[in-house]
């Protein structure tokens, strides 16, 4: 199968998955026990209030019509009204997305630097003390709860040493980079813990292959062999793992935004749950799922550019 056919098939699959995602989110409120109106208003609401809200949310219409309204609304960018903020959900969520995206991208960039550095050092020193040290260190990073680690960073670098601010997002770009450093580092360390394991293994495998011996035999320096020849092949599977981890990164931003008081979608999600602002919870769930789907598609497609030999099955 060629690249075009593969992309076409992946896109069809993506439409199917999107359909499934909307069904799950739409069904969640309706299948689970309890009246959504009372869920939102609380148990002490009057029947009249509940009836009004049902009318506003369209809950008194036939299920199929409700689903159609839900999906077509999403397609038009109309995701209903926030019950807490009294403003369109779409606007509200979109206004928070840049902070979350910036945080995720920052974390990814830091994770790339950390993974490449420590992955290469560990692989080259396989079995010796730097390798062991990195292995143990990142085992801790993997199992450390990110909200706790974030708080420790605040305590050490924010409150004690005063190197970094402890909350907020800043106004200008240099400020953003400065304000977001600790939150991004919190996410990046955990992400790299997964990636380093994989990259180390792949580099060790690749170092054994014939073409590496050839490259060394023709007198290339070890650094050139490593960076130009080994890394390019070793990175392939690490990129896949990265795609699979993206969902965890999105989940991590929710927690880290709460810890560092960042005005992103994660913080909005937690606030909306506390306020039973269900339309907003729904919208954020859909948006984050769509993001994961798109990133995974991009990762799969990036294969053919990283490695021209890749054929699609």
């Amino acid at each position: 199968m060629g690249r075009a056919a593969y992309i076409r098939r992946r896109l069809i699959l993506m439409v199917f998955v999107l359909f499934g995602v909307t069904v799950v989110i739409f069904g969640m409120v309706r299948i689970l026990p309890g009246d959504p109106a009372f869920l939102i208003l609380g148990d002490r609401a009057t029947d009249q209030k509940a009836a009004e809200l049902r009318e506003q949310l369209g809950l008194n219409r036939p299920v199929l019509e409700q689903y159609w309204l839900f999906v077509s609304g999403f397609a038009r960018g109309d995701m209903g009204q926030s019950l807490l903020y009294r403003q369109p959900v779409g606007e509200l969520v979109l206004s928070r997305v840049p902070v979350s995206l910036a945080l995720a991208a920052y974390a990814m960039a830091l994770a790339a630097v950390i993974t490449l550095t420590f992955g290469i050092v560990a692989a080259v020193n396989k079995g010796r003390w730097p390798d062991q040290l990195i292995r143990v260190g990142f085992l801790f990073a993997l199992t450390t709860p990110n909200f706790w680690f974030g708080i420790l960073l605040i305590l050490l670098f924010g409150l004690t040493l005063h190197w970094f601010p402890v909350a907020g997002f800043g106004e200008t770009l240099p400020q953003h980079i400065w304000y977001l450093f600790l939150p991004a580092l919190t996410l990046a360390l955990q992400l790299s813990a997964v990636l380093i394991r994989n990259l180390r293994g792949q580099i060790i495998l690749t170092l054994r292959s014939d073409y590496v011996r050839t490259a060394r035999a023709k007198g290339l320096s070890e650094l050139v062999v490593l960076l130009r020849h080994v890394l390019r092949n070793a990175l392939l599977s690490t990129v896949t793992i990265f795609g699979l981890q993206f969902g965890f990164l999105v989940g991590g931003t929710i927690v880290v935004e709460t810890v560092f008081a960042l005005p992103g979608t994660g913080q909005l999600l937690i606030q909306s749950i506390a306020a039973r602002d269900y339309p907003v919870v729904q919208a954020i769930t859909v948006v984050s799922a769509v993001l994961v789907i798109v990133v995974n598609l991009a990762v799969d497609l990036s294969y053919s550019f990283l490695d021209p030999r890749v054929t699609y099955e």
Partner: protein
Amino acid sequence: MSEKTLGAQPLPEVKALTRRTPAGRRIRLGPTLLTGLLLLGLVVFVAITAPLLTPYDPLEQRFNEAFLPPFSAGHILGTDNFGRDIWSRIAYSTRLDLQIGLLSVVFPFLFGSLVGITTGYLGGKLDTILMRVVDVLMAFPFLVLVIAIMSILGPGLTNLYIAVGVVGWIPYTRITRGEALAARHLEYVLAARTIGCSSARIMLRHILPNVIAPALIYVFTGMVLAILTGATLSFLGLGPQPPTPEWGAMIAEGRQFLLLAWWMTTLPGLALLVVGVALSLIGDGLAEDRGR
């Protein structure tokens, strides 16, 4: 009896015909596995003997003893803003967090493995439908879906198990399905089919023992994930409700007093770390042993 006495005809490969080839082997206690088991043993010991290890009730408030730092007289790890003994709260919380880890994996492991073996072995439409369901559920970031479900079900332990269970079975299904798919064409399965075993018997008696080991190893990763998720939800206020001692909730309570009482947040996190490292080491050790 050696092969030579039977003439030129070599014996058939006996290993491929027997079930339980990898699983029946004894597990070797490598350093990774041993460290993990010792750490976990220590944690379980604390959980079981919590009332003997500390004289204090984890819920008992003594306002005249609030914010005592670690190594104070009578309070080895200090006290919190209500004067409650931190060591006592951490020790009692060990029970809860181990319970969360254990109960959150039981259903996903059983359900996920059975579904994986069935669809992997039978294939066909059932398998296609299941894989699409998995695709859809995998599209949601794990924590976002769990939080969304918790927001409808409401906070609390039972709802936590349900929310984690809704997506938690997927890794077990993926692992066992892949293994069962490969096992379909192996000789021991063909042999069982030839002598007339039913599909159910082949799946449960022949395939299951051979494919379950990787799923069992994943249980330890699953437990770490469940405990961390539980602590995260309780940190966000969606888990067990106060004043129940739970590490995530303790970390959240201590946040307001970071500069005043760093031990309130730092120490429960260390407890979480110890449990996480112990379970990860056991998982890694078992995986290393299999890869040998």
